[in-house]
Structure formats: C-alpha cells, structure tokens
C-alpha cells in the first residue's frame, strides 16, 4: 500500500462516506442532548428499545434460517424461471412498507388468505402480537439476506465442496465445514443488512402488527410517533437506535464472523 494509492482510494471513497456521514453528524449536532435522559426515561422508550432489539435479532436469525436454503437453491439449482423468482424475492424491498404491511395483513391477518386458517385452526393471531412484529421484520429483511448470500454462493469454488465430499463429508457436513465458512463474508454482510433493516423497520410493522405499547411498539414506531408531536425527541430516539446498532454491529461482527470461520 503506497501512500499515493491510499490517498487516491480515500479521495474516491470520500463522497460516499460524506453522503452517509454528514446527515449523521448533522443529526448528532442538532440533537437536544439536554433532554436525552428525560426522553429515554419515558416509560415507553426502554420497552420499545428492548422489543426492537429482541424482535430484530429473532427476525435476523429467521432470515438466515429461511433465506439460506432459498439462496442455495437460487445459486445451485438451475430451473426455468429462476430469474423471475429472484426478481420476486426482491419485492419486499420495492413494496412501500405500508403496502408490505397491507400485503401481510391480506395474507396472514385474521381474515387473510392463510391467516384465517391460522386464526381459526390454531388460534394463532399474528397481528397485534410480538410474533407479528417479527414476521413483518423478517418479511422486509429476507431479500437482503437471500440476494447477498446467493451472490456469495455463486462466487464460491464448488470444487472445494467436491474435495470435501471425496474426503467423506456428507452434504450437511460439506455445508457446515466448507460452504458456510467460505460464505462467511457474504453471509455476515447479508445478516448485518437484514438485521439493520429489521431494526429500522417501521411501515410494515405498524400496519401489520399495530402499535400496542409494550407489546408491538418498536423503537422506530416510537420515533415516528414522537416525530408527530415532538421532532426533537424523535432525533434523540433515532440516535439511540443508531448507537445501539453500531454497538451491536461492531460487537457482534467480530464474534460471529470469527465463530463461523474458526
């Protein structure tokens, strides 16, 4: 790494960094820090934070569990219409979040396509429950995991998997011992993105799971409602969200990526 090269790289990376960095700096700068403690001490805030953390983690885990096989099929099984399926998988990203919520209601709501069976048969009402929050978050976050992971799988040298099999590794072992570790960078990126998306999710959640304090009110919902009345407090709450996500991403990533690679 010559200094010149470093300088050029930095110069090229600067506009992008500025685009993300400046608004954050501005937010921090404008935030009414004096009122931060008061706002965080408000009864709903901590509950919302807790729910946000738990539900987004569960949702991220679900995207991995549900998305990995999907990504694998997309990357490895050649079938007609694969491109179409890939485009369809991207849809929750395109769908305006509120429409996403409506779609979820139509499918999994009390009178929904599948929801009516869940409701009548299993007594499982998803809307207005924390499970509904997780479902909404998983729905919007899934595409990020699937597409990122699929790209990672495509870049992988499948001959290494062949080599593992000749050494006696079953498909499952190949996946666990070879595919997964080699996929780690992509999987980590996809999981980080989908976790972040789940953490920040607002529209689909409020539409599908509602906004019941202490039950389905996540931090973004609290932020939104705060914004209605008191934009300043919304900024502080947003920054709390940001701080939490930075802490988790910096903290987790190390453990988790290393854990996968080990």
């Amino acid at each position: 790494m010559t200094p010149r090269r470093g300088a050029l790289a930095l110069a090229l990376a600067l506009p992008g960094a500025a685009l993300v960095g400046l608004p954050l700096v501005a937010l921090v700068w404008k935030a009414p820090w004096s009122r931060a403690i008061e706002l965080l001490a408000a009864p709903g805030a901590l509950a919302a934070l807790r729910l946000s953390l738990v539900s987004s983690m569960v949702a991220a885990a679900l995207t991995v569990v549900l998305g990995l096989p999907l990504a694998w099929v997309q990357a490895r099984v050649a079938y007609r219409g694969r491109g179409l399926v890939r485009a369809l998988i991207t849809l929750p990203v395109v769908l305006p979040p509120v429409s996403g919520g409506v779609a979820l209601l139509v499918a999994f709501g009390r009178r929904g396509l599948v929801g009516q069976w869940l409701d009548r048969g299993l007594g499982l009402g998803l809307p207005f429950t924390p499970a509904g929050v997780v479902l909404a978050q998983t729905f919007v976050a899934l595409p990020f995991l699937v597409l990122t992971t699929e790209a990672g799988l495509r870049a992988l040298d499948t001959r290494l998997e062949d080599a593992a099999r000749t050494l006696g590794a079953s498909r499952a072992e190949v996946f666990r011992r070879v595919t997964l570790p080699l996929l780690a960078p992509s999987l980590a990126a996809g999981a980080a993105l989908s976790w972040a998306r789940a953490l920040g999710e607002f529209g689909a959640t409020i539409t599908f799971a509602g906004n019941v304090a202490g039950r389905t009110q996540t931090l973004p919902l609290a932020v939104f409602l705060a914004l209605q009345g008191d934009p300043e407090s919304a900024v502080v709450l947003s920054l709390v969200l940001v701080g939490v996500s930075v802490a988790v991403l910096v903290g987790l990533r190390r453990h988790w990526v290393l854990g996968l690679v080990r």
Partner: protein
Amino acid sequence: GGEGHDGRATRLTVFAAASLTEAFEVLASDFEAAHPGIDVDLHLAGTPTLVFQLQQGATAGSLPADVVATADDASMQELVEAGMVAPPVVFARNRLAIAVPPGNPGGVGGVGDLGRPGLRVALADPAVPAGRYTAEVLARAGVEVPRPSREPSVKAVATRIELGEADAGVVYATDVRAARGRLDAVHILADDDVVARYPMATMVGTERPEAAEAFVAFVRSAPGQEVLAGAGFLPPAGEPVAG
C-alpha cells in the same frame, strides 16, 4: 395554467395535510381553472412533517411554500408563534365517528362499547390530531380502552378496520365517506362529539401574496366549500354552506 406578466405561469405552492388530499386536489384544479396564469403545486404530507419542513427552511428558495393548511390548530399555532405565517383562518371542520366493519360484527353500539374487554379497537395515536380528539371523546365519555392499537394516522385506523383486524375504531366522518361502503359508521352522541378544525394561512414573506390570498379566499368561497362538503367536511362556522 396560463401566462403571468413575465410570460411564465405563477407557481403557487400549497403545503397541505395528507388527510386533505382528495379535496385539495380538486380545489387546486378548480382554482387553476378560475385563475389562468397560476399553477398550484400541492405538497401533501402529514401535518408534523409539514411543520418540520417549514421550520427547516422550506419557506423560500427552490420550492417556497406560499400557503399552508394543517389538520389541527396546535400545529398551526407553532407556525404562528414562530412568526412564519400570517394570522390563520379556519376553512373546514370535521366530526369524529366510530367506524366498524360492514355489518358491525363486534356489535358496537356507541362510545361506551369501546371499553368492552375482548373487542379489538384501533385508535389514532395522541401524537396526531385525530388521536388527541379521540382521547378527548373517550375522556368525556369516561371510557378507557384496554390495549388499543395506537395507529400512526387516522387512515391507518380505517385500513385496519376495513381489513377486519379491528372491530372498531374512531375516525373522521370524512374517512367513512371515503371508504365507499367498506366501513360502517356508528353514531356518536352529540355531547361526546368533538369538532376538528382545519386552519390555513399564507406564509410570511411569500413572493406571491396576491395569489396566496386568492387561494385562501377560494377555499373559503362557496365553490370551495362545496368541494370540501363533497368530501364530508363541515363548514367552518358550523352550519352548512349555502349552495
């Protein structure tokens, strides 16, 4: 539009609360028809967003706001106190209603029933104007709703009831009308009723004061009030506008 004196159309920018969407779209085109040479740009967003944007400097420059119409007095009052708007006028009112799915499966008979355990109730969050009015109604009736879903807007309340997720909710009368039969309304006793007020004002420092005044006047004129009445709004004074 048409030609202004400098050969170009005058662009009048109106910031309006999202709940006014349908009415203001008609008002804007009617106004344009009545005033050749003026084009109306509508910026429609939630009232808090409008207020925040105006505070952040959306008053001049690339898209100066000339007129602002909010869904409640409190928000407008913030702008007045900041010296950003001329004295506002109320141009419409609205009434609350209890909305239920067609056929009223929850058997809701009035405000008192909203406190019934087991009934799923969606209410607008007190952070938005409709939520504040709703809270007032419930307080006056002495009803406490157990675990309502606090929706971010009154439209979200309507959507939830339409899709059958909630058995009842409190919305504006205009919302029931807009739902075209997908919602039924349960009458709210006059005592419990709260009337929502919609104020509008011209911006201080607008470069098109005449056009701005003209628009405010148009909304308050008979043809303007007719449009608002068509959307279910009540006239500002409380009695229907003469046709």
